[in-house]
């Protein structure tokens, strides 16, 4: 195509008179060069316009943690609140007056919230004082009116965002949101002729050249803001003439297409201003929050001068790493402002005397929780294209509870290190999921022992044999078939034919048999033989269906070994199963996202509550009581080292063959938790569920200060005292019996035995326990 055009243009000048042959060639060469340049410029024009348009409108989706609800009676210390405030980007002031500030007083925290648009509406900034009594929030008083309030909600922590270019973050501001002082300072320092030049400022270049020659090194840049913007678009640091040339052309093109204000706004949002671990801080809006924990609009002249001073070299003038350099640079900027009459003498003096006062970088919540963000991203890409997530400015409200998440991370890492020491084996990994007992909200998720290492997310992707964690499904299926908690079952050896393989002879963990036991003890002590016998009686297919009803999707072959957990699930799937148990037999889909808002705060997508009753409440009540027995007397007894037995936690241990996987799943009053431990290459860990995952679960729950588990008793339940040694029942406690337990029964289920049992119990109370035991035992044989 180029050739064609060249030919056309050549034609008229071809046989022109009066030009010497050499001159002809020169004209031709010049023409060629001009045309080539024209095309090159057209190419650059397209590149820069695409870049500019793309940048102007690309608003990354922002991901928020759940907002902290504060109300009197909440179990939260002032220390815990401060952690939350830091995560949400609040700054500690001497005396908080502006939004986003707080100060601590004796037994109280005083704060000024930021206005925020929640999914249910705008909430304005307000000032409160929160009084603590020990580790409890005692009262909240609104400043000004002095009235006590029922509660308040903090604007949530930003925990991540989705970017077109990963790791680049910004808070996009409009031209109207840029403080005039910032604009004036920027122009005074970086580009005095911004409003009059056409993209290049030859005078500034000459001035810089002169200054640099005089100094013998580069001390001054002659680039206009437009040139700097172009440079930032392509972010390379090579200093070649060719690049300078390109930059200059593109700067002129940019000016030809766009207005000064557009260019200025783009610059303010694009300029690179620092590095925060893995993310690059772009634009003054984010830099203001990052360095000062204040909105740009709230910055003092000294702080504005600091930021503008940093444009020259964000890491060289980093206020945290190089405070002296940064301060010196700021004073130079202030000097310029005074000379240019941007600020008056008094402002200058105040600003010059101000300390650097950047906030120490602590506890910022951004990108701290990659495993959880991974889950959020996976849920979102089912609904949205990645490009939209990176450009539409959506606000994604998640269910992450930073307090719980941090406790999980701390306890998991510490416990794994301890367990490795104990077993003398290395390479132990783990995954944890904590959900809200009602509602299915995922509060915390750990995909490995090192929380910041994104990569293999074991909570979502490690598919492992669940061992005895499957047993509740076996016992639930049995209860549905009419078993009671005390139905006698045989814990004795058996061999089952195995289609296409050797016959299967399951064994108990302790390699012994326990004879006749009441059913609930089969669960409490995780007896394999009793469980297999129950499961075979109920039917493996029924047990498979029960597990599916509990919330596991997929198809599973109904082999007998399924009854002992020869089924591979991820920790997240296991959490769903125990969620259904914990919420009384109602299936509630797990949720990591609650609401998605568009850039204009309209609701784009709700992930609302949904419930579906999958089991009769009575059966779940019986099963959960048995799961409490696991913790009180059975394989979960070790939890008493971490949790007060009066919390009545329910749970189950799980160990896969050769101790390759160590599991614990259970729940307390408010939370469901699942812990998996194992190695990535599936080696034996030397840990059982009780000696491994239970320890981690106990440590985490202890740190969360759980509420006691209270099971709401459905109608039609009758309680009986029960002696597992004799299978005797009584409505009152047995006299002098060492081992007895109060258990719930469906009202009808023990009626047949009821009368005679009551009579003999009366006898036993009158005669003493010994004599009638054989008689009672006889009924059950």
């Amino acid at each position, binding site marked *: 195509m180029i050739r064609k055009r060249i030919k056309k243009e050549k034609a008229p000048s071809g046989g022109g008179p009066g030009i010497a042959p050499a001159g002809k060639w020169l004209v031709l060469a010049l023409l060629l060069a001009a045309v080539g340049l024209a095309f090159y410029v057209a190419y650059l024009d397209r590149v820069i316009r695409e870049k500019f348009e793309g940048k102007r409108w690309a608003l990354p989706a922002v991901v928020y943690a759940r907002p902290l*609800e504060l*109300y*009197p*009676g909440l179990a939260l210390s002032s220390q815990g609140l401060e952690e939350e405030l830091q995560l949400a980007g609040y700054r500690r002031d001497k005396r908080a007056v502006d939004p986003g500030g707080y100060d601590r007083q004796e037994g109280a925290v005083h704060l000024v919230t930021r206005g925020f648009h929640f*999914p*249910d*509406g705008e909430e304005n900034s307000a000032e409160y004082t929160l009084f603590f009594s020990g580790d409890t929030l005692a009262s909240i008083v609104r400043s000004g009116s002095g009235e006590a309030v*029922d*509660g308040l*909600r903090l604007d949530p922590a930003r925990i991540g965002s989705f970017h077109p270019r990963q790791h680049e973050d910004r808070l996009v501001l409009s031209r109207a949101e840029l403080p005039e002082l910032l604009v004036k300072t920027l122009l005074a320092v970086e580009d005095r002729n911004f409003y009059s030049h056409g993209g290049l400022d030859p005078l500034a270049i000459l001035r810089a050249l002169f200054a640099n020659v005089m100094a013998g090194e580069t001390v001054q840049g002659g680039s206009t803001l437009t040139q700097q913007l172009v440079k930032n678009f392509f972010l390379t640091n090579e200093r070649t003439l060719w690049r300078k040339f390109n930059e200059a052309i593109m700067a002129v093109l940019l000016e030809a297409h766009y207005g000064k204000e557009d260019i200025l706004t783009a610059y303010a949002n694009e300029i690179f201003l620092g590095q925060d671990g893995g993310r690059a801080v772009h634009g003054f809006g984010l830099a203001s929050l990052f360095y000062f924990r204040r909105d740009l609009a709230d910055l003092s002249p000294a702080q504005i001068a600091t930021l503008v001073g940093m444009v020259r070299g964000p890491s060289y003038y980093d206020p945290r790493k190089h405070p002296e350099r940064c301060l010196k640079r700021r004073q130079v900027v202030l000097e310029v402002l005074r000379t240019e009459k941007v600020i008056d003498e008094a402002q200058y003096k105040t600003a010059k005397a101000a300390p650097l006062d950047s906030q120490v970088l602590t506890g910022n919540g951004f990108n701290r929780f990659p495993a959880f963000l991974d889950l959020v991203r996976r849920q979102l890409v089912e609904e949205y294209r990645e490009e939209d997530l990176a450009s539409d400015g959506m606000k994604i409200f998640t269910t992450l509870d930073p307090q719980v998440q941090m406790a999980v991370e701390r306890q998991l890492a510490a416990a794994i290190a301890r367990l490795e020491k104990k077993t003398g084996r290395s390479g132990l990994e783990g995954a944890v999921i904590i959900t*809200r*007992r*009602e*509602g299915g*909200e995922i509060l915390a998720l750990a995909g490995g022992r090192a929380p910041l290492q994104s990569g293999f997310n074991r909570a979502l992707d490690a598919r492992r044999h669940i061992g005895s964690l499957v047993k509740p499904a076996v016992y639930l299926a049995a209860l549905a078939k009419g078993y009671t908690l005390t139905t006698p079952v045989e814990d004795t050896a058996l061999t089952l034919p195995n289609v296409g393989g050797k016959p299967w002879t399951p064994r108990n963990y302790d390699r012994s048999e326990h004879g006749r036991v009441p059913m609930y003890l089969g669960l409490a002590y995780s007896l394999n033989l009793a469980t297999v016998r129950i499961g075979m009686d109920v039917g493996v297919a029924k047990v498979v269906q029960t597990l599916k009803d509990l919330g596991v999707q997929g198809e599973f072959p109904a082999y007998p070994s399924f009854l002992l957990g020869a089924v591979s699930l991820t920790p997240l799937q296991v959490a769903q199963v125990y969620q259904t148990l914990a919420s*009384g*037999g*109602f299936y509630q889909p797990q949720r990591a996202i*609650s*609401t998605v808002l568009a850039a204009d705060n309209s*609701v784009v997508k*709700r992930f*609302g*509550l*949904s*419930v*579906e*009753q999958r089991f009769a*409440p009575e059966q779940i009540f019986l099963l959960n009581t048995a799961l409490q027995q696991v913790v009180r007397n059975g394989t979960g007894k070790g939890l008493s080292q971490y949790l007060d037995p009066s919390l009545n936690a329910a749970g189950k241990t799980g160990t896969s063959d050769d101790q390759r996987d160590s599991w614990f799943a259970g729940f307390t009053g*408010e939370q469901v938790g699942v812990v998996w431990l194992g190695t990535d290459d599936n080696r034996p860990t030397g840990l059982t569920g009780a000696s491994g995952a239970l320890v981690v679960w106990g440590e985490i729950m202890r740190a969360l200060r759980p509420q006691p588990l209270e099971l*709401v*008793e*459905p*109608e039609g339940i009758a309680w009986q005292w029960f002696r597992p040694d004799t299978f005797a029942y009584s409505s009152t406690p047995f006299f002098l019996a060492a081992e007895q337990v109060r258990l719930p029964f469906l009202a009808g289920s023990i009626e047949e035995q009821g009368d005679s049992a009551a009579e003999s119990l009366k006898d036993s109370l009158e005669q003493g326990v010994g004599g009638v035991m054989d008689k009672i035992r006889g009924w059950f044989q």
Partner: protein
Amino acid sequence: MPPLTQIPPPPGQAGTLLASANKAMRAGQPDKAELHLERALRLAPRDAQLWHAMARVRFAQANYGQAVQFCLKSNSLAGRNNAIIGQNWLLMEKAYLQMGEKEKAAQARQKAGDRF
């Protein structure tokens, strides 16, 4: 359906949020009421009255299947609170009628009657 005036609201912030939800419902904004109730349920997750209110929201959103499910959930947490259990069955009757399940509606009606 009679209002739930005879049932005291949950204390504190959850009660305040329930009041906001009721206000939104009266204003014909069930979606807004839903957000208030989700907040309230985070503070008082096993309050049968809040789950019942959620069932009313689903009913107003014409999501009758979920209205029934939320009533069942509410019942599972209501203990011996006959007032709430009765209200749940009444709402279930209405929801079943909307779904054209007359037999289930009649059963629900019967169960509601047992509670008053």
